[in-house]
């Protein structure tokens, strides 16, 4: 794994990005995040990214300082699991109106809204999100948050990631900055241990991370903070006392990992819990790092023992699916870490990768892919039409993607499985790969595809049957 010699780089100067190495000052100045192309149907904005990255902090009130739009269209649309609080799912917004904009009332409204939240909900903290409108009219949310924090004796955290600042991914990173500036290191834990780790860039979708946690529990490794999945304000405030960190989605929060290493000397590695080999590798790395940081050396042998046991079980279980999935081709249309980690997991169980998107992937992500895939199967941003033609040409047997492209697959008569935030199953860890195999198997072999692919009986001209190729007839 290439190490990230990223120290002393400023936030926009991400070494993993070609643009930042450009000689042209103007290109360099644009920073790492890809500017979106006008007229294309691309993903979300910086606000979206910031909210996605922070909202899983469950005992915090997330207050969107915006006209109703930003929140009215988007509240409660993520499936990350929380072990107790539901406050994060409650939608709070200042609903800034034309009157507020014209009269300049919105700062006062924000202050009042924080007070109303504090009185009714007594949250662990309030996170205040700037958006396009409130940033454009120049609301000083930092000042309002500072004042409110003093007045109510409550952490009030400004998140400065208005939509126009850039892409969703940039927003993820700005969210990390907000945690660094205002949260991490503000509380000293009285229970720090030498086997405490942080997990960064893990969202606990469908409780995915909880299914890995028992492995760590078994090893006596304690998760000080999983950022952001199912975290509490206090986890994050004390995260600076962990001894090591694992970076799961580096695209989202790499700046956080790097700066925590700089400030508090917390070494980190990039890993994935998708697939058997990657899961084992992640556990090894965690154990290795912790031992280097002073944990008992027996951790390594205990980890190896656990790996042997779990791997054997998972491989045995996968045997059931192997003959059913052998040689099936998967089109992977997702982003960031998943474009290589899921690809790797799939190849491990005998599936072929017909293609994988590299949108939102860092150079490291791409490098990993290049090492894995021999064919020319990486693609950048895909328009619905391109995606559709790849699918309808039978270049794959199934597509794994997110909700917005789901229905394109279906129109192309192609089985589909959600690999993004709306997924209903957990694919992490040793059992997760079995579940992934099971779900792919179920999806590919569902009888509806035969139905979908067959024309209505009256459309079947007699000659048509003869013309059909063997492969077509099987479909």
């Amino acid at each position: 794994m290439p190490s990230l010699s990223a120290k002393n780089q400023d936030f926009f100067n991400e070494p993993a990005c070609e643009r930042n190495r450009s000689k042209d000052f103007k290109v360099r100045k644009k920073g790492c995040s890809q500017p979106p192309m006008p007229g294309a149907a691309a993903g979300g904005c910086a606000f979206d990214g910031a909210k996605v990255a922070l909202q899983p902090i469950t005992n915090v009130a997330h207050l969107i300082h915006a006209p109703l739009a930003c929140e009215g269209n988007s509240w409660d649309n993520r499936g990350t699991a929380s072990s107790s609080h539901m406050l994060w799912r409650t939608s709070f917004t200042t609903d800034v109106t034309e009157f507020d904009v014209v009269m300049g009332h919105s700062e006062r409204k924000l202050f009042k809204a924080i007070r109303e939240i504090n009185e009714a909900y007594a949250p662990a903290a309030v996170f205040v999100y700037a958006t396009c409108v409130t940033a454009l009219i120049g609301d000083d949310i930092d000042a309002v948050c500072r004042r409110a924090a003093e007045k109510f004796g409550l952490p009030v955290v400004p998140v400065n990631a208005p939509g126009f600042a850039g892409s969703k991914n940039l927003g993820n990173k700005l969210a990390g900055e907000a945690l660094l500036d205002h949260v991490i290191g503000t509380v000293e834990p009285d229970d720090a241990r030498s086997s405490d780790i942080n997990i960064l860039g893990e969202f606990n979708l469908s409780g995915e991370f909880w299914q890995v946690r028992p492995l760590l529990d078994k090893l006596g490794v304690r998760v000080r903070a999983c950022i952001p999945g199912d975290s509490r304000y206090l986890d994050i405030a004390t995260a600076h006392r962990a001894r090591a960190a694992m970076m799961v989605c580096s695209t989202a929060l790499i700046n956080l990992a790097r700066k925590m290493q700089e400030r508090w000397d917390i070494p980190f590695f990039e890993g994935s819990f998708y697939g058997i080999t990657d899961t084992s590798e992640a556990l090894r790395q965690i154990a290795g790092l912790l031992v280097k940081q002073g944990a008992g050396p027996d951790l390594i042998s205990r980890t190896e023992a656990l790996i042997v046991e779990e791997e054997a079980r998972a491989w045995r279980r996968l045997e059931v699916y192997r003959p059913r999935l052998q040689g099936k081709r998967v089109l992977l249309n997702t982003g960031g870490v998943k474009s290589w980690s899921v690809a790797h997991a799939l190849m491990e169980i005998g599936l072929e990768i017909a293609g994988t998107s590299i949108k939102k992937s860092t150079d490291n992500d791409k490098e990993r892919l290049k090492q894995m895939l021999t064919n020319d199967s990486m693609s950048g941003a895909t328009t619905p039409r391109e995606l559709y033609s790849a699918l309808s040409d039978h270049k794959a047997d199934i597509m794994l993607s997110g909700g917005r492209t789901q229905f394109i697959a279906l129109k192309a008569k192609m089985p589909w499985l959600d690999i993004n935030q709306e997924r209903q199953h957990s694919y992490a860890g040793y059992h997760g790969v079995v579940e992934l195999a099971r779900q792919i198997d179920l999806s590919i072999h569902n009888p509806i595809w035969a139905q979908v692919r067959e024309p209505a009986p009256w459309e079947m001209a007699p000659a048509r049957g003869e013309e059909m190729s063997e492969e077509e007839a099987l479909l």
Partner: protein
Amino acid sequence: MPQSAEKVLDHAPLFREPEYRKMLAEKKRNFERPYPDRTVTDQREFTKTWHYREINLAREALVVNPAKACQPLGAVFAAAGFERTMSFVHGSQGCVAYYRSHLSRHFKEPSSAVSSSMTEDAAVFGGLKNMVDGLANTYKLYEPKMIAVSTTCMAEVIGDDLHGFIENAKDEGAVPHDFDVPFAHTPAFVGSHVDGYDSMVKGVLENFWKGEQRTVNPGSINIIPGFDGFCVGNNRELKRLLNLMGVSYTFIQDASDQFDTPSDGEFRMYDGGTKIEDVRAALNAEATVSLQQYNTRRTLEYCKAAGQSTVSFHYPLGVKATDEFLVKVSEISGREIPEAIRLERGRLVDAMADSQSWLHGKKYAIYGDPDFVYAVARFIMETGGEPTHCLATNGTPAWEAEMKKLLASSPLGNDAQVWASKDLWAMRSLLFTEPVDLLIGNSYGKYLERDTGTPLIRLMFPIFDRHHHHRFPLMGYQGGLRVLTTILDKIFDRLDRETMQVGVTDYSYDLTR
């Protein structure tokens, strides 16, 4: 370990395993510094009181759990109802991702819309360049017949002039001069999605009607459906009725095919929608009929100014509302209402009579868009039900007044309260302090169902957590039948659940209801 490769459990049952309960409880104890259970219980109980209700309803600066979306979402939905039309939202690009997800999740269909992807530079120097490049790219990439431009807050705050920008873009060759690029200013800090719908439809009409000469085509009718999450079922049902009557009509804005494409191996980025030449010809209609008045106020004014007679309804749902709609259409078109429709009406009335004992006196809370709330409250009263809380986050004082008038028209509306511009957190207090039997709204109501135990009936956009409801009509007599059945199913399912405990409550677990 409860989860293992040997037997993989789904997340719903998995986390109920004892090991997980323990793990999660420990997490709470160690990291939350939680309040004592007693305090939490006390607070929960407090939020159910009248005292808290007063505090809650007095909120000024904070909106909690809104039941409205923003103007551009309405504009994107509106644009989807025209032939080969791509929505182009001028602003930063996150917004468009929301609209696409929102519509996709509700209709279970792909939803196309693009953005001019404005960034900080555009915020400072204006979004002209984004408009020019964006239109050129959209034209090239997606081969639309029309590009419908709306704005987000951002473009509105910096004051971009759409008309001028589009002209400029045409001059620069982004799209041909005669290419149709209707537009609407849709700032999200004003109004809600229903206003955005209105502006966009008006924008399209203006694009085709401005400066054109009108030759009246007697008896012909334009129908504007309004923002409707049930457009797939509703528009088709209305067309069926109009065809039965033999009326000459044009749907202006019809997204029923766009959001219901078949799986036949063809990807339709665009499907159905009102044909461009039909929009042009619609100027000549004798009358324009809107199915949702609060959705179409400005469009109707424009139609009136163009010389048409106009009439509007509040989402024709139920017996009386459908009657009024059909009678009006018959009057304008000069076509009789045929026997087949009379029989349909009789069947709905028959069904309501069959079930009246189960519905009479039931109390309801209703929330959603203004016309929808009006329609449902009216139908509920037809069934003998009592609308108790009628709430619209995007309701106006005018709507409030009209609702009160409707409710005053029947003793069943005596106890009803109307809540304009309140949110779902306010509704929570209302349900605790003045409980009802049934709640009617959208998927977001499931938290109210959980907290207050009020059974939720999903009849309003968006419905994310149930499938295919939008494929069935709510309007017309057939739609009335479906709404009726849905309400009854909810009542019977609940009754069965409450009476199925063997030896305890099963004395009422009856086969015949």
